[in-house]
């Protein structure tokens, strides 16, 4: 290689010396490096050890929210009307799926309805945190649940589990009074923020449901319960490795709510409505307990629990009979002739003689003719109630003016809302001269005498709801006790007192007697409600009052609306109490656009509802059975058509009535 001698001593020395120095430097630098590493370890493991220990714990332990079971809602006899049932869900964990698209394809084959929600699912899954499961579908059928489990090996990252879902065993019967639960939405959260309250974390849990109407909404915080937590040890994939019992806190179930309702009465009430629209309320006249409060047509609240499909919701919202409207509390109607006892009582208090005779010639004249539905001839107050003579009450009304009627109406229960513990009540309207001054018609704030005759027969601006009618009927029946309605019997085992102490109404007992005799005559031979208000329970009989409220101006056309389209027919009302000799229950039924007067639509339904209530009352039942009456069939088993014998003239009207909601849907 080189011409030099192979080893120069000096060169070898120089090479070796330089190597030793340089190796020393390398050794030193390496040692320095290790010292630097040690320094870093000191920083991490000694100085910041606590911080990192906390981070490790946060990794290791997860607090899994445990939803509390929502409080049960039961009827007065302990029958569950809102409960919880197990529900199966499918969840996806994105980081454990191989290919989200492929997984959703296969899921779509198992559950075709996930296909249309695919975009929403992908959005949810992508928005979720690493390894946190996202519910894809809840409320699987057992079949679907089994299929998902069967295909589990081919569906990495997909799992099925079970949670509690709200369940309403009676479907639509309690839909309006109980309401329903649904997923909390942005508006719920905004509403809580508006009240300056902190939004509970539980609201963001995908399994949580918030009360949306009726009792579920009003008592939501009591029904909700307190969430628990499971402290679990998880691995990096979020799988639970172990449960830390010491750090876990059990969920506290929501309070149980017991209502005054009776499931049998309520179910029967919805049943007898059939396809008719309206509301019915049945009350205990002594303590105000509401045994039945129903609105028809109804809807299935179970649909709303896991999210109602928009098509179904539109069908419900667009149907002209308005199933979503609570016609017992929110819907207000003119009371029609059911209001006549108010006018009678108001007149009696002013000293009117119940035996005063007024001649009905088929019309009342005040500037123009106000028609009566018949020519009744000579009438006393009792006769006028029995025959529902318009002329008699128009005469009384015009004589005393609107303000006296209004005072009596309010005392008897109209024009106000009651503290039932649920929202949604409309007060309706009890007009008087003050009201007219506050609400002038085209700048004219004068009450004209021509408006009073209509007031006397429960028409005009006057509107009431079914609950008010029931309260009013109770007060008529129990002999001047100002009974207040009660819906919520107990919350969490604590009895809820009635809204107010029962006071006597400022009327003579004798005046009530006259009105009661009139109402007894209504359901007796020759009365307007005779045919359809026979209970068939031997000595236990029902007294009542029919009502027909016009829902439009008749012009010169036919009255009552036979042959008219549904929306143009009159409202049909009936109020009743029973037993006559010792009143126990009062019922009010409003049939929206029920057509025909004289209690053709309202009375038979009131009778059926009343029958169930009477037969369930042990005292009354004993009395009925003593008199030899044997119940041969379940009171709930009556066929609706059988109990509502409609006149033949109604047939064409039926043909023009709208089809049921289901046929509105595209097939």
């Amino acid at each position, binding site marked *: 290689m080189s011409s030099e001698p192979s*080893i120069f001593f000096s*060169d070898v020395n120089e090479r*070796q010396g330089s190597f030793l120095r340089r190796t020393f430097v*390398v050794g030193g630098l390496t040692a320095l490096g*290790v010292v630097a590493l040690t320094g*870093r370890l000191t920083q991490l493991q000694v100085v*910041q050890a606590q911080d990192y220990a906390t981070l490790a714990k946060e*990794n290791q332990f997860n607090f899994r929210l445990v939803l509390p079971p929502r409080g049960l809602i039961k009827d007065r006899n302990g029958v569950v009307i809102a409960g919880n049932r197990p529900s199966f869900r499918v969840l996806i964990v994105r980081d454990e799926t191989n290919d989200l698209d492929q997984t959703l394809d296969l899921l779509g084959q198992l559950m075709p309805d996930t296909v249309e929600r695919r975009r929403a699912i992908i959005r949810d899954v992508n928005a979720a945190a690493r390894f946190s499961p996202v519910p894809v579908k809840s409320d699987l059928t057992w079949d679907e649940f089994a299929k998902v489990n069967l295909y589990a090996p081919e569906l990495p990252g997909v799992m099925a589990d079970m949670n509690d879902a709200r369940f309403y065993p009676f479907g639509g019967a309690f839909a309006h009074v109980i309401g329903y639960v649904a997923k909390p939405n942005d508006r719920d959260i905004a509403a809580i923020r508006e009240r300056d309250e902190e939004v509970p974390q539980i609201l963001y849990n995908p399994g949580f449901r918030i009360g949306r109407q009726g009792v579920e909404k009003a008592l939501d915080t009591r029904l909700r319960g307190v969430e628990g937590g499971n402290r679990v040890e998880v691995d*990096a994939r979020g799988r639970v*490795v172990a449960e830390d019992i010491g750090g876990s806190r059990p969920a506290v179930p929501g309070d149980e709510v017991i209502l005054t309702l009776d499931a049998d009465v309520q179910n029967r009430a919805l049943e007898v409505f059939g396809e008719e629209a309206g509301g019915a309320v049945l009350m205990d006249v002594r303590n105000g307990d509401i045994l039945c409060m129903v609105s028809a047509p109804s809807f299935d609240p179970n649909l709303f629990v896991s999210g109602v499909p928009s098509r179904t919701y539109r069908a419900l919202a667009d149907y002209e009979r308005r199933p979503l409207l609570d016609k017992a509390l929110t819907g207000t109607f003119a009371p029609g002739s059911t209001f006549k006892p108010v006018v009678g009582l108001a007149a009696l208090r002013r000293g009117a003689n119940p035996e005063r005779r007024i001649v009905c010639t088929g019309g009342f004249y005040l500037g123009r003719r106000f028609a009566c539905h018949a020519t009744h001839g000579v009438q006393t107050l009792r006769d006028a109630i029995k025959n529902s003579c318009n002329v008699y009450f128009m005469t009384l009304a015009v004589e005393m003016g609107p303000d006296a009627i209004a005072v009596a109406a309010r005392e008897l229960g109209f024009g106000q809302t009651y503290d039932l513990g649920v929202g949604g009540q409309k007060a309706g309207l009890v007009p008087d001269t003050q009201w007219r001054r506050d609400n002038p018609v085209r700048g004219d704030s004068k009450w004209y005498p021509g408006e009073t005759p209509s007031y006397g027969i429960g028409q005009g601006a006057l509107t009431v709801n079914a609950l008010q009618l029931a309260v009013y009927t109770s007060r008529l029946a129990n002999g001047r006790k100002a009974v207040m309605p009660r819906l919520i019997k107990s919350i969490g085992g604590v009895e809820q007192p009635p809204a107010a102490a029962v006071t006597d109404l400022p009327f003579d007992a004798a005046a009530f007697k006259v009105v009661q005799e009139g109402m007894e005559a209504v359901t007796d031979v020759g009365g307007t409600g005779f045919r359809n208000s026979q209970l068939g329970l031997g000595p236990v009989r029902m007294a009542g009052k029919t009502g027909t409220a016009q829902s439009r101006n008749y012009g010169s056309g036919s009255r009552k609306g036979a042959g008219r389209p549904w929306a143009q027919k009159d409202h049909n009302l009936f109020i009743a109490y029973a037993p006559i000799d010792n009143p126990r229950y009062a019922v009010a039924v409003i049939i929206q656009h029920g057509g025909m007067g004289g209690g053709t639509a309202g009375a038979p339904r009131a009778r059926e509802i009343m029958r169930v209530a009477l037969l369930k009352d042990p005292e009354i039942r004993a009395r009925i059975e003593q008199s030899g009456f044997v119940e041969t069939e379940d009171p709930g088993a009556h066929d609706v058509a059988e109990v509502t014998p409609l006149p033949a003239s109604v047939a064409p009207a039926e043909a023009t009535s709208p089809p049921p909601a289901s046929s509105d849907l595209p097939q």
Partner: protein
Amino acid sequence: MTASALTRPGERDRVSSKLAEIDWRLTGLLCIVAGVGTAMLYSVAGGQWQPWALDHMVRFGVLLAAMLGLAMVHPKWWFRAAYPLYAVLLVMVLLIEFTPLGYEPVGAGAKNWLNLGFIRLQPGEFMKLGVVLALARWYHNHTANDARFSWKLLIPAAMIGVPFLLIAKQPDLGSAMMVGLTGAIIMFVAGLSWKIIATGALAAVVTIPPFVMFGMHDYQRNRVLTFLNPEADPTGTGYNIIQSKIALGSGGLLGRGYGLGSQSQLEFLPERHTDFIFSTLSEEFGFVGSVTVLACYIAIILISLRIASLSHSHFGRIAAAGATGTFALYVLINGAMVMGMAPVVGVPMPLLSYGGSSMMTIMLGFGLVMATRVHRYVELPKGQIL
């Protein structure tokens, strides 16, 4: 030392004499570190010998025997093998690049394996030793002046640069870097002029940032950028570093106990049996445990450098120092990486991490170091030794 059998002619070539000259402190330290590695692999497998601990132990046993065997090999054979071995390895790297024999394991991100039909290997791993031997031979035959500052330095530079570029192109950046830095250490200890060192350092400072931005693959650039700011993407590329730091920090002074490290046992720590095994160790045995292992490493390095400095031949000095340098680089780079002081590059912690290739490189390297010690009085002449 002067009373050693090696000093007595006729006795020094006996196997028994040679065995007596093996450095048992070094061997013992290697066994300790490998034993700790086995214990940690047993722990991260959830207290199971499978799938890693038993493998690791058996592999170390075989390679320890190989190391002791190589220690018996006379330096002249190492010297003769240096260039052919280097050439063969270079051809293998070329085969990977230019023939279908090279392949990329699924998900590896680099085509760094060679499939010769009867065997599959990573020539890039062995290239570190190839470069060490080739450079040792070259420096053995050249003067101090040549090594300090001369045009001849282009030859060792090319010996380093050609495999470096080929491996970097695969792109196995970790191995390429190890080859390059090992070569640099050898050139340094061989006596490279400070002027060249300063110029090279300056050139590196100027060229590295543009290289990171434009010359790297996305995943490599991500690693570097993640290192600079791991919190920018805590669930993605920054996840490894963050979880590793949590594992280290939560270990505290005395550790969380053997088999009780939640970061490793619950798999929050990625690559916990390979690149991040030091984090597992630190989590379970704390500051005391990790510093003890670091002390073992520095002891191994200093003993090996001492062995290099005691050799009577320049070849032995350079070769032993080079092999030691490779080992030191492994320790420092992996240590800095798991502690969040360097980007995540695929460099394992020697003898702790699970993995056959790196352990083989390490143990063959120590075979060379040990051979240098056993034959420290052998003086190789310059030129070809046949």
